[in-house]
């Protein structure tokens, strides 16, 4: 019997030829990742072990991205804890203000995660890296502490679900719309404990950025990991960045899936997920006219250069509605610089946007755009839970960058076509 790409990567990181869903396996890790929220707790647990070194100082990645540049004394103390640990243990890939970016934008860009890798991150959106054909999953701080110590983690091999997107995408539809649509179909626990494998012509047509957006939100359906088998686009993306060898895997034609979902990509409209769960996704036409107070374009879901280009393409020569605040947050320093070179930042500022240094900031209600009671935001982020962006009585709608930019201009949720044709 064949194996899925997820099963092959897990088997490759054990001493076994094959693994099957449900088996418990202990895997070697290519990379472990933590941020300024999860690393302090992981470091506290790691120190209890009394070790003098981490398993490999080049394979521990620490990114200060959530409450940075530090918003208050407590978050500054958290970063200080991590900074001191990084110095003491010679952590090579420690990213602080000025070098850092939003972790899940940063690691692929820096070539730190590669096809065929097996890795954990103390951040639920670690599943993003499946877009490169890696097995990557989120864990808590204690598992991360053990991972930093041993370079190993145990996993239950997940059953795989296959999602096939046939045909061509409609204009203005991207990875964000496909994943919101998918979560709407299967629900927020529709993939609980499972691998979500994305294939089909429409996935092949997506850029690597669009695939990163899709895999990023696999966890919002409860999945252990999202994954896209590598193709020429993946290799072209990785070749320019990789600093170590890697081995790409593909699913066997006879691999077993717990379920196969097939969708016609051409029938999927731009999507908007209503409060307070990502599964509440509907076509943007059903959300049209909802007035909003803030638009956020950025995050580990949609803070990449392609997202900024799409948003700037719509905002070019136009102004954001005075009824709302528009906040644009490039995902990394490199994206920021590229957006500057391409004139995108100028477009945003001319349109009336606040453009920020990279940070997770408002996505999790941290800083840089917190909502007051009764306010509504439309965001290209990944979660619209109660209180996610601020006051427990505020609301978050999720969408892709095209819908976000169009809505910023009109002041209410709007199909990008409505703005483009004007």
């Amino acid at each position, binding site marked *: 019997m064949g194996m899925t790409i997820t099963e092959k990567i897990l088997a490759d990181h054990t001493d076994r030829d094959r693994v099957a869903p449900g088996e418990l396996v202990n895997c070697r890790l290519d990379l472990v990742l933590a941020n300024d929220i*999860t690393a302090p707790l992981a470091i506290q*647990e790691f120190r209890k072990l009394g070790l003098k070194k981490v398993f490999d100082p080049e394979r521990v990645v620490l990114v200060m991205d959530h*409450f940075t540049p530090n918003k208050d004394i*407590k978050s500054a103390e958290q970063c200080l804890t991590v900074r001191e640990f990084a110095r003491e243990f010679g952590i090579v890939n420690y990213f602080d203000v000025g070098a850092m970016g939003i972790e899940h934008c940063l690691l692929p860009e820096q070539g730190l995660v590669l096809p065929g890798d097996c890795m954990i991150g103390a951040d639920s959106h670690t599943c993003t890296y499946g877009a490169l054909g890696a097995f990557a999953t989120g864990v808590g701080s204690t598992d991360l502490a053990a991972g930093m110590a041993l370079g190993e983690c145990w996993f239950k091999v997940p059953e795989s679900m296959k999602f096939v997107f046939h045909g061509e995408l409609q204009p203005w539809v991207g990875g964000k719309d496909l994943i919101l649509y998918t979560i709407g179909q299967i629900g927020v626990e529709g993939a609980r404990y499972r691998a979500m494998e994305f294939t089909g012509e429409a996935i092949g047509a997506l850029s690597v950025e669009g695939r990163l957006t899709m895999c990023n939100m696999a966890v919002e359906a409860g999945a252990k990991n999202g994954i896209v088998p590598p193709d020429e686009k993946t290799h072209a993306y990785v070749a320019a960045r990789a600093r170590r060898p890697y081995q790409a895997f593909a699913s066997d034609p006879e691999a077993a899936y717990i379920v196969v979902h097939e969708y016609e990509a051409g029938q999927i409209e731009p999507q908007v997920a209503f409060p307070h769960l990502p599964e509440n996704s509907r076509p943007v036409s059903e959300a049209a006219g909802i007035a909003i107070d803030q638009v956020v374009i950025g995050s580990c879901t949609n803070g990449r250069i392609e997202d900024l280009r799409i948003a700037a393409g719509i905002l070019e020569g136009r102004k954001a509605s005075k009824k709302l605040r528009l906040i644009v947050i490039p995902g990394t320093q490199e994206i920021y610089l590229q957006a500057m070179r391409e004139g995108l930042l100028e477009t945003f500022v001319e349109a009336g946007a606040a453009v920020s240094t990279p940070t997770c900031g408002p996505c*999790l209600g941290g800083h840089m755009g917190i909502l007051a009671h009764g306010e509504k935001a439309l965001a290209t982020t990944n979660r619209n839970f*109660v*209180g996610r962006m601020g006051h*427990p009585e505020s609301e978050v709608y999720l969408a892709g960058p095209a819908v976000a930019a169009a809505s910023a201009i009109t002041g209410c949720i709007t199909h990008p076509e409505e703005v483009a044709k004007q």
Partner: protein
Amino acid sequence: MIITGRVWKFGNDVDTDLIIPARYLNTSDPLELASHCMEDADKSFAGRVQPGDIIVAGRNFGCGSSREHAPVAIKNAGVACVIAGSFARIFYRNAVNIGLPILECGEAAAALQSGDRAEIDLTTGSVKNLTNPGTYQAAPFPPFMQQIIEAGGLINYVKQKLEPQ
């Protein structure tokens, strides 16, 4: 291990932002986290919950972020056990790793109501409603996982195993 306490009932898809809002994640202090536990779902919870109390919820408890601060907040608020129809996977693993007992039992989760008193036997997985009598059976943790819980979490468990006998 037997737990007896009062039930606090919540719904489906209780996410980690409800358990401990991200605005309080600028600290790792367990008691400070506990003081904001469940704040956006029930503002009065942290002030009223008593040591030994039990959280009961529907499906997909702990979905969302990987923050271990969520089970840490629950445990340090005094909650002795969480019973739910199902758990999100990262929360499940984090709860075991920090030594918070959790049980998956849809029947008990449906039957128990806020204010009920319940008795849980973690060794057998038996859940008794003492207010509206009824007994429900959850799959207990295997012995090694019970040992992790009893040690107070994975790191303590590993240290105990490594210490010379």
